[in-house]
């Protein structure tokens, strides 16, 4: 286990309801995890706690088996290993040009300038930012800013990458590019946790799913297992990915038809076929 939350409580000072209530959640190493839930279910709070920006009011957080410490040095260390990409790139980019912004985290680690420049150069090539490198941040489009904010975090080579609604500002193509990038990042051994409410995206990308509601973990497991719990998900008004919906509708249509017609038809989609269709959608 990479990061463990044990019965963590967190309530914002201005809010009557707790953001997280006795939340227990374990992030397995090397997986692509999706964190599903409505707005305000505690996804962002969870990330801020994981990054050591907030301290749990009750309970404990363990990073690689040892409890999180909140002194300056441990926090610096933790924040290099746990990279957090905020939802709004506008607030994440602080320096004035792309290149300077990417160098910011490395300079904070106190690395010598030649090494900083070399690593910034690598990140710029890896994230296709060469044309934008010397441009001021406010000249970029939102999609480009998002790419820069991911490069900002990845340049530190974190072991755990937290993404808060990464597709919120992206169009279809940018989303696809981002997913491809994330696959590459995961291939190098980085664990990724993505908060989203796009169920289809979560289904086709993730291999482990957490469902959060009102600050508590409701379900976790592989996408097939989690989305098979249709009733629970419907109760939470989350629903299921489109492909599950389509398959269920087809099955329903088939069984209706069988009542009308006299002859025997399959009133169910055979299990192997169903699984094959689900698999096709998963790896597309």
């Amino acid at each position, binding site marked *: 286990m990479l990061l463990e939350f044990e019965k963590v409580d967190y309530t914002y000072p201005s809010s009557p309801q707790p953001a997280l209530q006795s939340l227990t959640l374990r992030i397995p190493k090397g997986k692509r995890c999706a964190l599903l839930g409505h707005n305000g279910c505690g996804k962002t709070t969870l990330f*801020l706690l994981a*990054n050591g*920006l907030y301290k749990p009011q009750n309970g404990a957080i363990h990073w690689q088996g040892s409890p999180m410490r909140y002194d300056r040095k441990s926090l*610096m260390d933790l*924040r*290099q290993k746990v990279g*957090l990409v*905020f939802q*709004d790139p*506008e*607030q*994440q*980019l*602080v*320096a*004035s*040009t792309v*290149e*300077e*912004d990417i*160098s*910011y*985290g*490395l*300079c*904070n*680690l*106190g690395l010598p*300038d030649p090494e*900083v*420049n070399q690593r*910034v*150069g690598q990140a710029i090539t890896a994230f296709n930012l060469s044309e934008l490198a*010397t*441009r*001021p*941040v*406010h*000249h970029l489009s939102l999609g480009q800013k998002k790419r820069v904010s991911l490069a*900002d975090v990845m340049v530190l080579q974190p072991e755990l990458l937290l993404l808060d609604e990464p597709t919120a500002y992206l169009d279809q193509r940018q989303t696809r590019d981002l997913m491809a990038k994330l696959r590459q990042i995961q291939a190098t051994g980085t664990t990724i946790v993505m908060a989203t409410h796009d169920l289809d995206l979560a289904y086709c990308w993730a291999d482990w799913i957490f469902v959060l509601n009102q600050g508590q973990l409701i379900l976790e497991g592989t996408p097939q297992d989690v989305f098979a719990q249709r009733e629970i998900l419907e109760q939470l008004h989350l629903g299921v990915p489109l492909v599950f919906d389509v398959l269920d509708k087809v099955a329903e249509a088939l069984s209706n038809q069988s009542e009308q017609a006299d002859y025997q038809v399959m009133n169910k989609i055979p299990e192997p076929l169903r699984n094959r269709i689900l698999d096709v959608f998963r790896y597309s």
Partner: protein
Amino acid sequence: MSSLQIDTLAYSSRLRQLPPEHKLLFAIVLLIITYVAQIPVQLAIAGWISVWTVIYAGIPTLVYLRLLSITIAFWLTSLPALVMSGIDLPHLQTIQTDAWAGFRWGDYYLYLSHQGVQQAAELGARAIASTACIYFVILTIPFTEILSVLRRIGCPTLLTELMMMMYRFIFVLLKTARELWTAQQSRSGYRTRTLWMKSLGLLIGQLLRRTLENYRQVSLTLNSRGFTGDFRVCHSRQYKLSKRYGFEALFGCTLLVMLTGWHYVTGI
């Protein structure tokens, strides 16, 4: 002319690859000469630096003239006060030599003063020459590079950091203000005078609220990115020296200094 446009121009100017220190030094030297020189030299400086800005750096002439017209407009509005003088009739003798032309107006005599015209011309030449120098700086050196020069010559860190953050977030603020303004416009928020005042009040209040929110978010981000209390960044920009521009700048400045010196010596 928004600040964003000026910023974009500076980033795409053709003199971008010259070291910012050199451009800054060039403008400062010209500015100093402007302060000590006479009208012909000042006009020469204004013309010469405009050639640098418009032809060498490739800033669109129209944009440049529009910027320059601001200064000229200020100068023109103060012109009447500078060139016109008035005196009551009994003292008319004392200004005989100074008056160019004039007329009586009641008990007063209003006239065009030689000295005033001279003063206005000096003021105009100096104002236009010095703003042309400043425009050369802001139109050919991006603000971030001015900042890094300031950092290198030992400007206090607190000051450069503040300027850097202001530069980054002024655009966020402007964008927020523009979005709010558009949203209010689309719901006819500025239809009448009273509504106008009310909507503007709302806009300012909202801006303040969002600024505070933004501040909270940014401090979270800075922490998350390992802020250590000292804002440091690196860049890999490579500047190229240009012999051609260097020669022209040196030659021109020497000539201007000699001309100014000659003016002082011969007393013209």
